[in-house]
């Protein structure tokens, strides 16, 4: 009964000092809104990154094999070991269970491509015909390189939309002859635009030719820059990756203990890595959000501490009519709790709008987690009590004799 009556006294005090209460609520509300909005940004960014990576990797069912040890960055003929042979790709397709298909790739970046007086240096990819399906690319115009083109080492090319724009502008490129490293190729298709990769660079500045043609008639290299292995079951990729590793070590006659002369990217591992990168981002955002809450808590603490010094006479009076130190502590903690909870509630309401605005800006659907919202209101209440405990303790230590004399 006593605590109920004391809570009423606390509520009256909140109303009595309404301006201060509103400022305290605002402090907490800003903290909660920051928390919710940053949470939403983090979640949206995570979803967006996963989408971009899918854009690059195609589906998550391809294991990538590259030559060399731990190669970093984009591979190219000029920066890799000549360890990965065409026969390795054939062996993988032939000997490993669970493999749906194997694509071969030979690529270079420093090759000039010209059409009449236009000259550019796109990425030149020699690929097997199944590349299209593995990448999830679409041919917008004409057709892709075929198995027949590859077998016959045809000088045909399929170009990305950026290349088309640079070389042909309004002209139709189909049937036109471009020169790749001085060698003439006939354009037989144009790829649909893919947009940006995870690093933000365009994936459309690309020229694709049959991989055998690339190897024998253009680059004169007998090794691959990448083998892409599509597995039948995406959940099986880790096992397939291990099997490929064993097979290649055997084929390359590596002694036990020797380092691999290739490296394998398991999509499951990539996904795990991504989640980790994102959790770092999420942690930073969460850190900033907690700083916001901390700021709200400091506002509560500062204003309440000022309030306690202003209310010394009230505290002394309450003690003189029978309040003990615990009663005073309780009332001030209760006031902090109520103010912070209301602040949290208003903050949640404000952040509703904020999240919608941020989502609109990011051009992504709003992520609104009701549970997170309730949690942030609860967090606000906890922050209120924690940061209110210092001023409440100070209030409980007020000496009534001194307070009533002032």
């Amino acid at each position, binding site marked *: 009964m006593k605590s109920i009556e004391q809570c009423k006294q606390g509520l009256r005090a909140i109303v*009595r000092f309404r301006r201060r209460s509103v400022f305290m609520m605002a402090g907490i509300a800003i903290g909660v809104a920051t928390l919710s909005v940053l949470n939403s940004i983090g979640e949206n960014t995570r979803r967006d990154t996963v989408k971009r990576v899918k854009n690059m990797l195609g589906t998550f069912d391809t294991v990538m094999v590259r030559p060399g040890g731990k190669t970093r960055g984009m591979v190219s003929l000029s920066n890799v070991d000549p360890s990965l042979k065409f026969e390795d790709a054939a062996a993988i397709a032939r000997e490993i269970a669970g493999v749906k298909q194997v694509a071969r790739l030979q690529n270079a970046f420093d090759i000039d491509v010209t059409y009449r007086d236009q000259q550019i240096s796109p990425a030149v990819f020699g690929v097997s015909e199944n590349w299209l399906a593995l990448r999830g690319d679409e041919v917008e115009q004409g057709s892709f390189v075929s198995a027949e083109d590859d077998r016959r080492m045809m000088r045909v090319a399929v170009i990305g939309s950026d290349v088309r724009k640079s070389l042909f502008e309004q002209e139709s490129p189909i049937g036109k002859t471009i020169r790749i490293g001085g060698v003439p190729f006939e354009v037989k298709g144009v790829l649909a635009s893919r947009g940006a990769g995870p690093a933000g660079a365009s994936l459309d500045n690309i020229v694709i030719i049959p991989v055998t043609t690339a190897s024998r008639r253009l680059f004169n290299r007998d090794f691959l820059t990448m083998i892409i292995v599509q597995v039948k079951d995406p959940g099986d990729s880790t096992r397939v990756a291990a099997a490929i590793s064993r097979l290649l070590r055997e084929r390359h006659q590596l002694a036990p203990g020797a380092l691999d002369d290739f490296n394998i990217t398991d999509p499951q591992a990539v996904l795990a890595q991504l989640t980790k990168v994102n959790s770092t981002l999420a942690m930073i955002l969460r850190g900033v959000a907690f700083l916001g809450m901390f700021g709200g808590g400091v506002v509560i603490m500062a204003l309440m501490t000022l309030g306690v010094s202003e209310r010394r006479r009230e505290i002394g009076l309450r003690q003189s009519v*029978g309040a003990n*130190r615990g009663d005073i502590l309780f009332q001030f903690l209760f006031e902090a709790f109520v103010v912070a909870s209301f602040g949290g509630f208003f903050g949640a309401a404000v952040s509703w709008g904020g999240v919608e605005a941020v989502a609109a800006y990011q051009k992504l659907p709003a992520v609104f987690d009701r549970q997170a919202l309730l949690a942030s209101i609860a967090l606000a209440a906890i922050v209120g009590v924690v940061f209110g405990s210092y001023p409440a303790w100070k209030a409980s230590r007020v000496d009534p004799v001194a307070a009533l004399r002032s």
Partner: protein
Amino acid sequence: MILVENISKIHRRNDGAPVHALRNVSISISAGEFVTIRGASGSGKSSLLNILGCLDRPTGGSYRLAGEDVSSYSDRSLARIRNQKIGFVFQAFQLLPRTTAVENVEIPMVYSGGRVDRRRALRALERVGLGARARHFAAELSGGEQQRVAIARALINDPALVLADEPTGNLDFAASSEIMRIFKELHADGRTIVMVTHDESVAAHARRQILLSDGAVIADAAICAEERRR
């Protein structure tokens, strides 16, 4: 009612030097007495009243209030005594200004453990003649009215002992007379009243005067009826 034996109170100044606010004070006050405590400022009147009111503890000596030795009581027990047995009236009224008269009167009930009884608070205000002003904010009332609200608050839990620290010190003559009339009524009802005052004319209402100087009792005398009549 009150039995104080050899109490002393020593404050420490900021530089650590001791200040003797009370030195070996012994007083006995029976139930139903009306006693004033007089003395120059700094003589220890307020220190004594704070100890009698269980707001402060003596540095030495013993204090028995209504048979209980409260010198060794905890903060919690002293708070209960203040709530149940003592009513305070202060020179500066000590009302919450942006709170209505009746809500001010209710405050002691908050700490009594029961429900706050609005009707009882209104009756207490009626008794001091302020029934009509119950819903006014304390800050809107005159000084005399504020002190009457404070008296109603002091009486709400029906304490046996009423302690007043210069209750008329901030009031004009008319308001002072009204306040003193109320105190005499309280005395007539059988309550024990201890009042600190500077004012001889106020002190003259009491049956007994205690004179303090430099923390010690220098005179403690009943005032004969003849003297009081003058």
